[in-house]
């Protein structure tokens, strides 16, 4: 239930990651980044923490930077590719990432996904990491990061760990961040040469959470799909990596037939619910339509040589 004001809590402003994780304690001591989600939850009394730990003064978390690119060879080899990767600090705002020239040039799929969030204030205040930490499958950023193969860096009292983003979302509203942990960084590998992506979203109005969204990344070589990443949001308790759909495309010539099969497989892979925004039946059908439309768009962009 919404309230006009918040219940009291203690407040800390650590300046290092180590200090922050020593204070953070699940729902008893919650981390605050941009506040767009946490403060709303406090108003709704969905959480009543004893302490709020602001990360806003922690050093070294507000960066958006790209590692020096060693010719993209590591990425093309399919192995771990720190080189050329995009590093998004936990305090980097959505707007910061959306407008970073490097992101617009080399990870336009991510810029496109953030662009679908139209509230300027939300993007000026809210962080990319915070958006993911809400744990909602309706995140617009998550499917794009899934399709880009992002990894999450999480710091705890025992040090840092790194997990692929597919292991980050556990259930609706639940992430892999432990009670004494915070996300410090999101690492997004450089897309391979010949890649292009597309992000699409259906919602009631422009300023709205998705009924369904989808992000795809295609790597084409001579009209053949070398690699496909397809991710769908708002259609299951977590964002979904449509593996069967990806398999339906990989190694095949990109065309209407392959795309249709992939879209059908994606629709099979989801289990949406009916809620205030839409119905399960509609969402499932729209997964098919959006994935197909996104694949067509990505394929066209790849063919045109745009990195999209």
């Amino acid at each position: 239930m919404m309230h006009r004001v918040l219940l009291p809590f203690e407040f800390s402003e650590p300046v290092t990651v180590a200090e922050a994780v020593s204070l953070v304690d699940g729902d008893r001591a919650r981390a605050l980044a941009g506040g767009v989600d946490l403060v709303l939850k406090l108003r709704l009394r969905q959480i009543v923490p004893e302490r709020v730990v602001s990360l806003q003064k922690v050093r070294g978390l507000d960066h958006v930077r790209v590692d020096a690119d060693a010719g993209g060879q590591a990425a093309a080899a399919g192995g771990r590719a720190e080189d050329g990767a995009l590093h998004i600090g936990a305090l980097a705002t959505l707007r910061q990432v959306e407008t970073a020239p490097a992101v617009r040039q080399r990870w336009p799929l991510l810029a496109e996904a953030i662009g679908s969030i139209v509230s300027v204030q939300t993007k000026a205040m809210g962080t990319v990491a915070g958006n993911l930490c809400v744990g909602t499958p309706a995140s617009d950023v998550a499917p794009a990061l899934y399709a880009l193969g992002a990894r999450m860096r999480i710091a705890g009292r025992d040090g840092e760990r790194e997990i692929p983003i597919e292991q980050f979302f556990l259930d609706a509203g639940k992430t892999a961040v432990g009670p004494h942990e915070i996300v410090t960084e999101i690492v997004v590998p450089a897309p391979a040469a010949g890649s292009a992506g597309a992000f699409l979203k259906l919602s009631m109005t422009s300023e709205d959470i998705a009924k369904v969204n989808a992000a795809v990344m295609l790597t084409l070589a001579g009209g053949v799909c070398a690699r496909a990443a397809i991710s769908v949001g708002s259609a299951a308790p977590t964002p979904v990596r449509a593996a069967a759909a990806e398999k339906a495309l990989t190694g095949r010539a990109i065309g209407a037939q392959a795309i249709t099969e992939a879209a059908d497989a994606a629709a099979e892979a989801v289990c949406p619910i009916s809620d205030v925004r839409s119905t399960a039946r509609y969402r499932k059908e729209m997964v098919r339509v959006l994935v197909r439309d996104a694949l067509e768009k990505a394929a066209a962009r790849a063919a045109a040589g745009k990195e999209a």
Partner: protein
Amino acid sequence: MTTDAFSEDAFSSVGRRLGRPDVAAKATGAALYGADITLPGMLIGRILMSPHAHARVAKIDVSKAKALPGVAAVITYDDVPKRGFTRSVMAEGLPSFAYEGENQDQFILSDKARYIGDWMAAVAAVDVYTAERALDLIEVEYEVLPAVFDPEEALEDGAPAVHDGWKDNVAGIIDHPFNRGDIEAALAASAHVVEFSGRNSRQKQAHMEPDVAIASWDSQGRLTVWSPCQNAHLAKKAMGRRVFDIGEGNVRWITPAVGGGFGARLSFGVEPVAAMLAKVAGKPVKVVVTREEDFNGWNSRTEQRQTIRIGVTEDGTINAIEQNVLSDAGAYFSHSGTISAVNMQSTLGVFRSPVVRGKATMVYTNNPTSSGMRGYGNPEGSFILQQAVDMAAEKCGMNPVEFRLKNAKGVGEPSMWEPQNLTSCALPACVEQGAEAIGWKDKWQGWGVEKQGRYRRGVGMSIMTHASGAGGFLLEHSTAVIKLNEDGSAQLSVSPCEMGQGILGTLSQIAAEATGLRYENIRVVTGDTDVTLFDIGTHASRSTYAIGNAVLDAGKKVRAAILHRAARRMDLFPEELGVRDGMVYAKADPGITISVADISREAIYDYGTDAEHIMATGKHQCVMHCPNFQAGFAEIEVDVETGVIKVLRLVIAHDIGRAINPLTVEGCLEGGAAQGLGYALTEDLVIDRQTGKVVSDSFATYKILSSLDMPEVEIILVEEPDPTGPFGAKGVGETGITNVAPSIANALYDAVGIRVHSLPMTPEKVLGALEATGPSTRPGPSARLSVAIGEVQARKAVPYS
């Protein structure tokens, strides 16, 4: 009121796009809305709202709340006067026989919760933090009762009774007052009969300013209320005679800046609770609410389920119209009766028909209650009627434009309130100009044309009539006062409700034109019932027409007084003089002038026997409601794979009579169009059918348009002055909303051959209807949407986040 002696070639204020006097303060943040006002010693009030849709209070313990330091008062049903009232303040303007039909079923606080959000207790404390903590300390034991959330279920035998003594939950039945003829015989005799059924969603007013009220009793038992009220003089009566028994003279109503009304402020909001808290606490109390509480609570459009049948002759003449309305009143009667009545009037009153039958049944349920919402029944009825009209046109093979022009009433014929004949009607010009603007001739290709491809375009139209005031069916009069100041400026005392529609500027322009003063020198005095004279206030799109006529009357009298004194000064006859821009001039030689300021000052500083403060009272009382008319057109593009309707263009052609301020009039129509688009496509107050909880209780889930959602809207103002309007003006305030949904619905049929029977026309429903008619979507009979509607009604409150 005629406006002879004013020449429209020489208007100084009327017709100009002038800035309004109240907006600079709004642009600087200086304007004070209710929540911005602080009084010495003021407490903050919060209301405890029921979490159950239907429950008796078995036990309520406020002792812990009362004991909290900083709490000044805690009240429950036990503390309030046992005087029932209707939430509808506007009802005070009904003639007594009709008022008796308004159920006085409301108390300041309830002993039985009848909807989720019903008001069970309230606290007043030193600050909002303490007030909210006090709410948490109130312990209520509810005896939960079976509830009913569907009006048809509420009518069944054995359904839970929402109000004791109303076993069948029928809150009221209204027969349309102008029923005539034998409907079944007339339909049987018709060459073609069409029928269309449907329902609308409970659209929220969603004014940006949440409800608020401040109440303060003085030492003599006089109550002052500050609230965003649309009819303050009626509210004064309702509070002084119904809620409390203190008399109208002991209530002073102050209206601060109002952040949007749209009809919501025609009902009591939190004012009675604020007054009760202030009485008990002995200090002023400001009651504030959250947006969530507003969504869950006490006003919205009613949901009306309707069937309309139209019978036509072979040549496309309407010979019978029937309308049946089942209205979900919600938990309290409020406006549900009057909305249904106005629905039938405006719906059954647009077209000529020898046989007419309308009947409305209002039903109690455990859903939230209603208040006025823009259009007040007209958007509800038009969505059904204008689709039935298109169906009839199709049966006759007629162009929808032609069919409407053939059957719509015109000058000299009975208006929608039949005892009055139309004195003006520019509908044909609206239709023609609107059709031209949308490109109807080229874009409407005829009935049964199947479009191809994934994205299919269509055009549709709708017409409507609306009142410019409630003359003839509600109390309808206004009084205005103009008094001159010594410097040639004037105070204009009027009592509309300026809630954004720009009425203060409009009335100032009328005053300036009528008196001959400069627009910039008109100072408006408003918003205080101790100062202003009785006025119904703002509703029924009446303010320009009715209050404008009162201002015109006062202005002409002031002008006459100025000329009378000036004539003596200038040794001429008054007829030989004119007044313009604050200067009196000789018509024969305009170089000879005296300023109004001089006249006014000399009148006051008269040391002889002829001192005068030049002022006049103007009145308007009229049984005319001077309807306005409008034609609306929509061009849309439908994605047959997603069901998404993209509105490419809207054209709205309005019969305004005279646009006193075209900038203001356009603004009203554009804003109405935005609400019409929401009503048509995106705004859905979703209520969980298991619990009665409003699931869409925030702007995140109840979707009004953002800046990126507005399509291109073209406004056409057709000016054929009405002889009875001030400078020929007619009403416009509510009207922009009404034609949007039906014109889009008719365009949908043109594009893909299906009709959606419930609002909003979401992509889910459109896709469901497309699937039901088969993949070819060949235009044909309207598709029933039982599948899609069933899914919509089965939505449960299980959000992702």
